[in-house]
């Protein structure tokens, strides 16, 4: 899908330029944007290094684990089919916490572990269980506390206040996570009403 969009944008652009006499602009844009992309990535190093460094301290101090334990009662309610104290819950919570702090790389392995456990609970079937759909819904709308990458891009482009979008991001992601859970519940309700609970 991404492949298709990526190629389409370039090809449509080039063909469009053929008929609209904008080939010069296209030429210039290719080299300028490639250079810009590298500049942005380099510019991100500062924030990423600082943030991930800080998060390592939090991790070694057991702060993330502590947060997980704190969130567990809520999470247990979101996944009624998972027995309490099942390892799946632990992974789900760690995944959510990592996402909250913008640690995508740490979140992914936890998420995969969580899915593995959920699959075991579902008798190793290759069908997505109710809990899996819920987990996915929460994950895609994940509550975000610190969007570190976005802040670094805003910094690069000379924002007067790079962090000013933290509040809006937090509110938007919280509301949409609640919404995602409701949407998930709605579809579950529809499935069970039709009969054939799964």
């Amino acid at each position: 899908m991404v492949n298709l969009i990526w190629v389409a944008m370039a090809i449509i652009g080039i063909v469009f330029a053929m008929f609209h006499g904008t080939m010069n602009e296209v030429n210039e844009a290719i080299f300028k944007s490639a250079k810009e992309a590298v500049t942005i990535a380099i510019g991100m190093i500062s924030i990423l290094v600082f943030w991930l460094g800080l998060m390592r301290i939090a991790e070694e101090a057991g702060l993330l684990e502590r947060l997980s334990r704190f969130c567990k009662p809520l999470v247990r309610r979101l996944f009624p089919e998972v027995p309490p104290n099942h390892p799946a819950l632990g992974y789900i919570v760690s995944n959510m916490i990592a996402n909250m702090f913008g640690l995508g790389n740490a979140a992914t392995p936890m998420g995969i572990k969580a899915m593995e456990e959920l699959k075991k609970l579902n008798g190793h079937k290759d069908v997505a269980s109710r809990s899996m759909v819920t987990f996915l819904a929460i994950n895609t709308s994940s509550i975000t506390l610190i969007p570190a990458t976005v802040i670094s891009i805003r910094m690069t482009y000379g924002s007067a206040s790079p962090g000013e979008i933290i509040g809006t991001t937090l509110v938007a992601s919280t509301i949409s996570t609640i919404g995602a859970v409701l949407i998930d519940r709605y579809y579950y309700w529809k499935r069970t009403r039709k009969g054939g609970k799964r």
Partner: protein
Amino acid sequence: MTFIQIISTWLIPVTIAFILLYGTIKKVPTYEAFVEGGKEGIQIAFSLIPYLVGMLVSISIFRASGALDYMMNGIKPLADALGLPAEVVPLAMIRTISGTAALGMTTDLIATYGPDSFIGRLASTIQGSTETTLYVLTVYFGAVGIKKMGDALKVGILADILSFIVSFFIVLLVFGK
């Protein structure tokens, strides 16, 4: 709404102070841990380069040729009717499909319209507040071999749409147009 702005300015410094204090109390070798974790940041930034180069070049060809403006004019009546800025519609569409592609597009919007413009703030909020549904779906379900996704895709995409709408209203409410 100043409350949201206060959170924005206080959250990072307070979080930093808290983590440093907590680490010290728990006798973590704070500085060494920081350096270890920081190394990972360099790796991530470098591994992002090809994604960004690829996406930014493709987008910029599309824009410089005039095709983007052409498409924008097509979307504009619909976006206007919904009260959305047409410039962010492509971002909203690609955010569901690829995170790094969206990151490229967000960067492009911020560079073109400025980080403190309405579009810049909206793009920042959209980028920060959703995960890439298709990525999560392919990676998580792929890794454990789930073939029948059930309602997962539908729920994920609906949640994304909701998230864009919410982002739009929050940014409008807090910063104005």
